[in-house]
C-alpha cells in the first residue's frame, strides 16, 4: 500500500489507481463490525434495501410486514460504538402503508425527495419523502416481484415492473401512464434491471428460465435472449435451448460499467454474460446456493480491481472474484438466511437479514483512513440482510 501512496504523491500514478487499490484492500479485509449496528425497527424480515446514490448517507429498507424505514448511515457522534438511527418509518399505523410484504424499494436516482416501493399487495407506490405519503399508486393484477428505475436516465423516467404476469409493464413517472408493455416471457417475471450504461436497455429475468434484453425504443420484441450454451445446441436437452439457466432465473445484476450482466438461477448457478452480445462468458463460479422463490438481490463491487460479486448464500454472503469465478471468502455473521446485499463504494455491501435481530455491518478491521486525503471515504460497512 505504501508503494501506491508514494506513487500517488509523486504523481507517478493516476489518483484512481490508489482509490482502486484501497477499495480492493478493504473488500478483501471485510469482516463483521462489532461496533456498528442499525436500529431494529422491522419486526419481521427485511426483503429489500437500497442506499441512495447521491451521498450514500440514507438507506431504505422494506420489510416483510410492509413497513418501510429510512436510516441515516452517518456517524456524527464521534464514538466508535454507534447505532445507525432510523430517520423515519412508514409503519403499520400509517394510512398508506403496504398491506403485504414489500419486495423492492428504490430511491429516486437523483435525490432523496422521492422513493418507490412495490409489494405483494399488487401495488407500487411512489412516495414523497417529506410527507411520507404516496404521490402515485400503480395498481397491478398480480404480485409485484420487482421494479427498477434507470439510474442514468435523462430522456425518460420509466419504471420497469415485473409481476406474476409475463408481460413487463413500463410505468412513466412523469405522466403516470402505463401503456408500454414488453411481451415475450412465458412465466412470471422475477427480476428487472436497467443497464447502467445505456438508458434504454433493460434486462429481465423470468421463471421460464429465460433472460431477455430489451431496447425500450424498439417496437418489436426483445433484442436477444441469453443462451447458456451460446448457440451450441448439442450440449443440453432440447427443452433447454435458449435458456439462461436450468431453473427459474431470479437474480440479475449489471456490473458497474454495464458491460457485463450476472444472473443467478435456482439451478444453483451464477453466470456472467457479455451484455452487448449476450454471450455466456463461461466463468464457472461453482455451486451458488439459491433457494429463493422470489427475487435474489445480490451486488457487484464498484471501483475495485478486480471486481467482486457478493451473493447471499444461506446465512452468509459469498464473495467471488468477478472474472475468474474464484470464491474469495464467505462473510458470516447473520443468524438467518441473507436476503439481499447492496454495495456502496464508500460503505461496503449491506445485506439485510430477515430475522428481526440482526442487521449487522461488516467493516474491514483496519481503518487507516486518515492517511488518504479526499480519495476514499472513511469506512466500509457491510450490512447483510438475511431472510427468515
Amino acid at each position: 500500500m505504501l508503494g501506491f501512496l508514494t506513487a500517488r504523491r509523486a504523481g507517478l500514478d493516476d489518483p484512481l489507481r490508489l482509490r482502486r487499490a484501497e477499495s480492493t484492500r478493504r473488500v478483501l479485509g471485510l469482516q463483521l463490525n462489532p461496533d456498528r449496528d442499525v436500529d431494529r425497527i422491522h419486526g419481521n424480515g427485511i426483503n429489500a434495501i437500497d442506499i441512495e446514490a447521491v451521498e450514500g448517507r440514507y438507506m431504505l429498507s422494506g420489510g416483510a410486514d410492509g413497513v418501510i424505514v429510512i436510516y441515516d448511515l452517518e456517524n456524527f457522534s464521534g464514538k466508535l460504538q454507534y447505532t445507525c438511527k432510523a430517520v423515519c418509518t412508514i409503519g403499520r399505523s400509517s394510512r398508506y402503508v403496504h398491506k403485504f410484504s414489500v419486495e423492492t424499494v428504490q430511491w429516486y436516482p437523483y435525490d432523496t425527495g422521492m422513493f418507490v416501493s412495490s409489494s405483494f399487495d399488487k401495488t407500487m407506490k411512489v412516495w414523497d419523502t417529506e410527507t411520507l405519503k404516496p404521490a402515485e399508486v400503480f395498481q397491478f393484477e398480480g404480485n409485484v416481484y420487482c421494479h427498477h428505475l434507470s439510474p442514468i436516465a435523462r430522456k425518460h423516467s420509466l419504471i420497469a415492473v415485473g409481476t406474476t404476469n409475463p408481460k413487463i409493464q413500463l410505468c412513466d413517472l412523469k405522466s403516470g401512464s402505463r401503456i408500454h408493455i414488453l411481451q415475450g416471457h412465458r412465466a412470471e417475471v422475477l427480476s428487472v434491471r436497467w443497464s447502467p450504461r445505456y438508458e434504454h436497455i433493460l434486462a429481465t429475468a423470468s421463471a421460464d428460465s429465460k433472460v431477455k434484453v430489451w431496447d425500450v425504443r424498439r417496437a418489436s420484441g426483445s433484442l436477444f435472449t441469453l443462451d447458456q450454451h451460446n448457440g451450441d445446441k448439442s450440449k443440453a436437452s432440447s427443452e433447454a435451448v435458449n435458456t439462461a439457466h436450468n431453473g427459474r432465473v431470479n437474480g440479475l445484476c449489471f456490473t458497474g460499467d454495464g458491460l457485463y450482466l450476472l444472473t443467478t438461477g435456482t439451478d444453483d448457478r451464477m453466470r456472467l454474460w457479455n451484455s452487448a452480445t449476450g454471450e455466456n462468458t463461461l466463468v464457472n463460479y461453482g455451486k451458488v446456493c439459491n433457494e429463493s422463490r422470489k427475487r435474489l438481490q445480490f451486488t457487484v463491487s464498484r471501483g475495485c480491481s478486480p471486481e467482486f460479486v457478493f451473493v447471499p448464500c444461506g446465512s452468509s454472503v459469498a464473495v467471488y472474484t468477478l472474472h475468474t469465478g474464484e470464491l474469495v471468502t464467505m462473510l458470516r455473521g447473520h443468524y438467518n438466511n441473507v436476503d439481499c446485499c447492496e454495495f456502496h463504494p464508500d460503505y461496503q455491501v449491506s445485506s439485510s437479514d430477515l430475522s428481526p435481530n440482526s442487521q449487522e455491518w461488516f467493516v474491514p478491521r483496519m481503518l487507516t483512513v486518515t492517511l488518504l486525503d479526499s480519495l476514499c471515504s472513511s469506512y466500509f460497512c457491510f450490512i447483510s440482510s438475511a431472510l427468515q
Partner: protein
Amino acid sequence: MSRKRALISDAFNLKKRRNGTEQFGATAAEEGPADIKSSLEYLMTLFPRKLFNDALPQIVLKHQLYSIHSDRTLVDKELNKMRERGDLLMFQLGFDAEAFGLVFTSDYKAKVLVGEEGKTTQTTVERFLEKVVTVCTDLSFTKDKMLKEFLFTDSEITQLVKSGVLTVRDAGSWWLSIPNSGKFTKYFIKGRKAVLNMVKKSKYGEVLKAEIEERRTNSQVKFHMKYHIHDIVGAELVESIPTTSGTLLRFVDS
C-alpha cells in the same frame, strides 16, 4: 510480458496459499495448464478397468477435476482446448444435466473398435469414428446433421444406436455415448449414494478425508474410494474444509 507497473490485483495476491493440508495427500495447488492433463491422467488411473473386463475406456467426470484445481474457469478452458485439439472427448452421461464424462480419444476409439470386432455394424462404426468423432466436438447430433453433413443413412444410424455409440436423446437427435456404459452408470450412482451415506451417517455429518479413504467399502461401492471422493467434492455434494488435521468433508444438506 513485462509490465511497467504491476496490476493492482497482484498487490493483494489473491491466490490464497493453503497451508497444512498438502502433506495429507492432496495434490499441490499449482495451476499450470500442463497440470490439468496430469490430473486427468491421475484420475484415469483410479478408474477400475478390471470391473468391466476391460471393455470400457477409462472415464473421468469433469467435476472431479474441480476438486483438484481450485480455478474452475481455467479447468473448463483447458478442457475445451483439449477437446478442440481432438485429444479428449466429452459425453453427457445422462443421470445429471451437469455430469460430463471425459475419455481420451485414443482410448475410446481403441475400445470401441475392439468391441465391434466381428459384428455386422463394424464398418459403419469405423466410418462414424473416423468421420464424425475426429472432426466434430459436439455432444449430440441431430438427424439433419447426420443425414446431410455426414451422409449417414437412416439404417446406418440405427446400426450406430444398436452398437451403443449413439444414444437416443429425443425424437430426431442423439447423444454421443460410450458403448456398454450402462453398467458404469449403475455402479457409479450406487457407489456415490453409498459414499454420501457414509459421510452423512458419521458423527456430526462430517468425516476427515484421510479417514474415509481408509474405510472398508461395502459391496455397493465398486470403484476406488478416491474416485468417489473426488466426485462428491467436485460436485459440491460435500463441503471440503481445510483443518489442522487435514481436509474435512462435511455433508451438505440441500
